């Protein structure tokens, strides 16, 4: 398997993992909103809290985490950009 293929396999892996987490925080928990709301967090009903803050914060964390992971993959396979960094 060439380096490029390996890189793409790993990139796809990262994408699927990221989207799985996204699916959990964006959809799965709201399928059970009714029962979640009987629990509470910081005094807020849980489903309300996830909607108002929880999931949004989770999305931000997922984005940074996934971007770092992808940078490692690029590094590993020798496709990291040099010289024109931010």
């Amino acid at each position, binding site marked *: 398997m060439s380096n*490029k293929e390996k*890189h*793409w396999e790993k*990139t796809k892996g*990262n*994408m699927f993992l*990221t*989207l799985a987490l*996204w699916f959990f*925080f*964006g*959809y799965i928990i*709201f*399928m059970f*909103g*009714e029962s*979640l*709301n009987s629990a*509470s967090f*910081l*005094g*807020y*009903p849980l*489903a*309300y809290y996830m*909607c*108002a*803050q929880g*999931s*949004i*914060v989770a*999305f*931000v964390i*997922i*984005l*940074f985490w*996934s*971007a770092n992971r*992808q*940078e490692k993959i*690029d590094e590993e396979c020798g*496709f*990291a*950009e040099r010289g*024109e*960094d*931010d």
Partner: protein
Amino acid sequence: MFKGKFIDNLPKIYGTYTGGFLVFIILMAIAEQAGMTAKTIGILFVAFTVCIYAFIGWMSRTVQVDAYYVAGRSVPTVFNGMATAADWMSGASFVAMAGGIYFGGYTYMAFLIGWTGGYILVSSLLAPYLRKFGCYTVPDFIGTRYGGNLARFCAVVVLTLASFTYVTAQINATGTIAARALSIPFELGVWVGLVSILLCSMLGGMRAVTWTQVAQYIVLIIAYLLPIFWISNKGGYGFFPHLMLGEEVARLGELEAQFGLVKNAAADVKAAGVPGGLKSISLPHSEVPAGGMAAWKFISLVICMMVGTASLPHILMRYFTTPSVKAARKSVAWSLFFIALLYTSAPMLATLSKLSLMDPNLATGIIGKDISAVMSIDWVQAWTAQKQAFIADFNGDGILQLNEWFMRGDVVVLSTPEVAGLPYVISGLVAAGGMAAAMSTADGLILAIANALSHDVYYKIIDPKADVRKRLLVARGLLIVIGAAGAYIASMRITSILGAVAWAFDFAMSGLFFPLVLGVWWKRATRQGAIAGMITGLASGTAYLIYVYPKFMGNPAWLGIDHLRFGIIGASVCLVVMVVVSLMTPAPDSSTQKMIDEVRIPTGKTILGKQH
């Protein structure tokens, strides 16, 4: 004061700017104490900020093609994040979101999840690859990946339709705010708003829009957060409202049970003479509606807003401006960070303003009080005079019930400082923030349409030999034409029949999402497939919208897919047709395959040249 290149000095420049703005707020507060009128303060706030944006726009003027289209691809990660956040958060987000939560509670908050989670799709499926591609516009990618002018043209059509649906609402919002703050008629306010918008973008294109959007983000986030923290601390709800309003949310539940959530019959509302667009609270704040259908309605709205986010060209094109692929990816994360600062605050603002009106134990409470007493409150008089609020005593008992208090959604943000008894300087600040939010989004949208028409239609299809001067001239001319068209439609006050902002997301996802994503992720996708997908997706989505929208044919929604969610139909059709047609036509040639391989790795040259 500032040595070296502009880009190296960004933190210093914007730090100074933020400090200067805070000093301006303090000066206004002092002037208010000294007796300056509310009207003058409002005018100064809006005029001062708009002049700064215009100054930035003028400083960023350019004659370079890549500076005009993609800000020279030199915008640092964090600043691009701020610019995207301003680009993203429209007048609607700023003014109407808290109002939406105020009336819709948990049900409405599906928008919060949809308008944030979409960025994960942007980051993992599109932004880094489009940046590597090196395109100037979104149709540029479609046109080069699939080849041919027809594919490019279809993408331009979808882009124009989606963005134009969105932009009239933004110009409308700038007009409303300018009219209120400057005390001029709405029709004039719309044109004042348009001139301010064009001042930011005309001379410098994407470069100017980028640096004004950063400035606008700073104004809008200060204007949104300051009142919330102030009210929360003043009312003793906790010094950090986001983590400390649990009790208040629970209290709202008690009050809802006490007053009862009554949905007024449409006939009663009409008979009482309630002005259009005003609503009363009839949905619970934090309670999740029961049943599978309610959960599906929540989730289907989330799907549409998320997928729509990942297809809206004015957002995608912001990631063409970063210096590298890696920076594009990080920049998406920063964008969502800056967006989240406002979005996580909107429910808190809704909670606080709802409580201050509903709790009879508070001095500000009006529900459950004598109507004659309520009618003598200053802000109630002011807003009812403007037909933004209304009282209808349905049961004739002289007491204001929850279902008898009608209000416009926008009023929640605009009136809260006043209701809570904050000084007028805060209301002036909120007006400046709303103006910044509406202007920044309008700028991004108008630029997206004008760039697609000038680069993809004029330069790539009509006159490929045009020189740089002519191309930029056409681009600027189109900017004015599109802005004027938007302002003209807004000034006719027909935006209510143009439908919701949500439609822009549905149009974009119907026609663009799968052609973009499969263009990167599926090598087998062919030109014929993409063209067929875009046409059938957009057509079926639009047909379903006409079929289901109450003001058009008004048929019952199928599986709860109403006019806010028609993108589900469009995007599904687009996917199926695109896959089937692609498999029926010969696979793309080897040079296209190689191009896709190149797009998938961050290193190496961009597919399209630096100037093209």
